[in-house]
């Protein structure tokens, strides 16, 4: 009796992983840091994540519908949610709701879908969204809260929701009273006004390495990143070169002029460096393809970040550094192609 079968392609194994699983693991790695953030700076971050994620999913669905693409596989891969979380982690916890709206519009619709959707974006979508709102709304984007431990007033959930919904300062206070400088802000103003960093570090917003609270969040980012490394979701090249370059150049700067250059560990644990090293610059789509390319990419992000921090107009340069290196990624790829088995001089058997 002849039996017929359906035919499908090799390999004939059950699938090992999916895009959704990769994205979910990255989101899972961010959870401890988000919890730490909420601990130190109040529930604002959770509200922002919720807002940004909702806007992101809506924009993604709309873009897919307009582009006539199937909704389920793309909405179910959690890439938009990840973009939203990374964006929310970069903005102040009390940022008005329309910051998330505009940021997600530029991230999902412009940076991602206008370039071709998942896998085709040239620039990191979360960073594009962040940079757009940073440049367009400098006031709202610099209203950072001081850590709960030292703040005179720390908004609860109700006050947070009111502030975000209305765009005004929380609890009836003025913005000046409710917000404070971040550690990088403090360093920048100190250097600008001619004080030394050591003097600036007397401020209570500084902890042992970086900012109070911020250094703990950075630790949790690092732990999450190391877990992703162990799970082989990200490669070691970008984090190691990025942090290594910052340490090296930071060390050089600090030895040369400790008055205006912070200590290397200070650099590493401030701002978005750790989250950038493990979660943002490691975005595979907008980064380099080969391992050697990623080494160059990571080093480039480190160098540009330090340059912007020292001489540029913004306190933290990670976002701009990532976007600038995204521009160079295709060029780096072109010149860092790995040698193919059987070609080239190394260990070849032929003459």
């Amino acid at each position, binding site marked *: 009796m002849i039996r017929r079968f359906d035919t499908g392609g*090799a390999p*004939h194994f059950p699938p090992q992983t*999916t895009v959704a699983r990769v994205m979910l693991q990255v989101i899972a790695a961010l959870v401890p840091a988000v919890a730490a953030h909420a601990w130190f700076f109040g529930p604002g971050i959770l509200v922002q994540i919720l807002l940004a994620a909702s806007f992101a999913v809506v924009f993604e669905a709309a873009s897919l519908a307009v582009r006539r693409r*199937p909704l389920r596989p793309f909405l179910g891969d959690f890439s938009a949610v990840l973009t939203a979380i990374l964006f929310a982690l970069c903005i102040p916890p009390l940022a008005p709701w329309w910051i998330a709206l505009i940021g997600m519009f530029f991230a999902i619709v412009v940076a991602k879908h206008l370039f071709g959707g*998942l896998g085709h974006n040239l620039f990191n979508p979360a960073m594009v969204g962040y940079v757009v709102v940073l440049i367009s709304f400098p006031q709202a984007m610099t209203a950072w809260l001081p850590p709960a431990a030292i703040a005179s007033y720390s908004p609860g959930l109700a006050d947070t929701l009111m502030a975000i919904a209305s765009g005004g300062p929380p609890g009836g206070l003025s913005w000046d009273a409710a917000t404070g400088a971040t550690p990088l802000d403090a360093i920048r103003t100190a250097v600008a006004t001619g004080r030394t960093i050591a003097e600036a570090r007397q401020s209570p917003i500084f902890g042992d390495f970086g900012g109070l609270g911020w250094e703990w969040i950075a630790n949790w980012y690092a732990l999450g990143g190391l877990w992703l490394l162990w799970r082989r979701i990200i490669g070691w090249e970008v984090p190691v070169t990025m942090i290594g370059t910052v340490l090296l150049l930071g060390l050089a700067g600090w030895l040369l002029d400790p008055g205006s250059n912070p200590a290397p560990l200070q650099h590493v644990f401030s701002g978005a460096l750790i989250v950038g090293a493990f979660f943002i610059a490691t975005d595979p789509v907008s980064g380099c393809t*080969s391992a050697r390319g990623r080494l160059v990419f990571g080093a480039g992000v480190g160098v540009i970040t330090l340059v912007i921090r020292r001489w540029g107009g913004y306190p933290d340069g990670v976002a701009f550094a990532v976007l600038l290196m995204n521009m160079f990624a295709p060029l780096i790829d072109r010149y860092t*192609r790995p040698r*193919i088995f*059987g*070609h080239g001089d190394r260990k070849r058997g032929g003459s």
Partner: protein
Amino acid sequence: MQTDRVEQAMRAGQRLHRIPGGLRLQHNKSVSCELPVAKAALPPRLYVPLPGPIGVGVGLLVKPGQRVRKGDPIARSDPGAGGWVHAPTSGTVDSVVSHPVSHPSGREGPCVVIEPDGLDGWTDLHPLDDWRLADPGELRRVISEAGIVGLGGAVFPTGVKVAEASERGIHTLILNGAECEPYISCDQMLMREQPASIVLGARILQRAVGARRTIIAIEDQMDAVRHALEGALREAAAADIEIVTVAAVYPQGGEKQLVQALTGLEVPGGGRPTDLGLLCQNVATATAVARAVAEGKPLVERIVTVTGNGVRRPRNLLAPVGAPIASLIDQCGGYEPNAARLVLGGPMMGYPLATDSSPVIKAANCILVLTADDIRPPQPEMPCIRCGECARVCPALLLPQQIAWTVRNGLWDEAIDFGLSDCIECGCCDFVCPSHIPLVDWFRHGKLELRLRAAERRRADIARERFEAREARLARIKRERGERMAEKKRVLADEGARQEKIAAAVERARSRNRGKDAT
């Protein structure tokens, strides 16, 4: 000389080298190794595929109704097209029909249908008197005429491979027993049960190509195999043959990967191991060579692993070429209820068959019946997220995501640049891709397109040459005609020469008439 360098590399401590990339896969082999290899029962009809359409380089040697014995030649073709085909058993030739030929495309081809008479009687066999004294060229001829092809899956005609190799000079023969793909265990069982034939085959091949030594490569979890082979080597007192174990990493058993593991050297891109003075043959091919030379038996049957969760009693069978796969599965207890896919080959590189009436072919090392749980449900292919996992596991050091991009968009020059031709189609990249992109299917399609384009370009170049040759010929004829006319005109213009010519013509006419009158 570079072959000396390779020899030194191999002698210098057999330090095994790691291959780049690769995967550690679950073996799933032990279930088919529990029972010894059994001779498959003969089915009611055998469908022996011919190498190609009759008349196009293929000559049929039998007629319908003719009685044949096992081993009688039934078709011959150019050595490059597959060589000789012999009757797998004794019986009657029924007809030549169009039947599925177990090809990846699922197409049908001409098959000689043989009805076995059940006796399975061999034809008159003419083994070589003493292969130890035979000329290497004679050995190669016997290998060629026995229809032996590479039984590791590539089915390259062994006679051609050995002839090319001996021209290059081979110092080491490598017998590939590193069966790295999951589920397949036919080579393992062959080595356990017939190690002496492998040693004999190694000796014969060594003589045929002039190799000084042989290495039999096995995987490190094959202890019983090692034991059996060592016993056979002791009995044969073969000092120039040694056994080397390589790591059980897929695809360690690929020819280029095995060479790299044993020597640390890479086969040059576009080249072969013979460029390094090495000849690689599968252990089953060595056994077939031993049978052909020492017993005079052509290649008509092979060990096939019938396994998978969709088969009730997996085992290895010694099956004749042309036996419908359904008959083999019947002998293994039949299908499980949830059998969903029939694959020829292993789960990484095998291809699915649409019907189980497809015949056993010389390339069939394994019949894998998979259930619905084992196979990938048809997932939508997501866009590549450039995670780089594929590049990490590629044993050929390629960038599969870039190659897939170029093939998808028809950028053929870039595809070649990224190394599409160097892909060994192992399937490691496909296995790890989170977007479920069928990378191997893309690469196979890309390679096909490249081959077809190259053929098209060659045809265009030949047409251009023929056209230009024709133009040149016509121009030359015209020129010569012009010269002759000019010569004639010049002669006619000269009065004296003209008179001479007229007189000569008149004389010719007269002598002709005289000749006619005389007869």
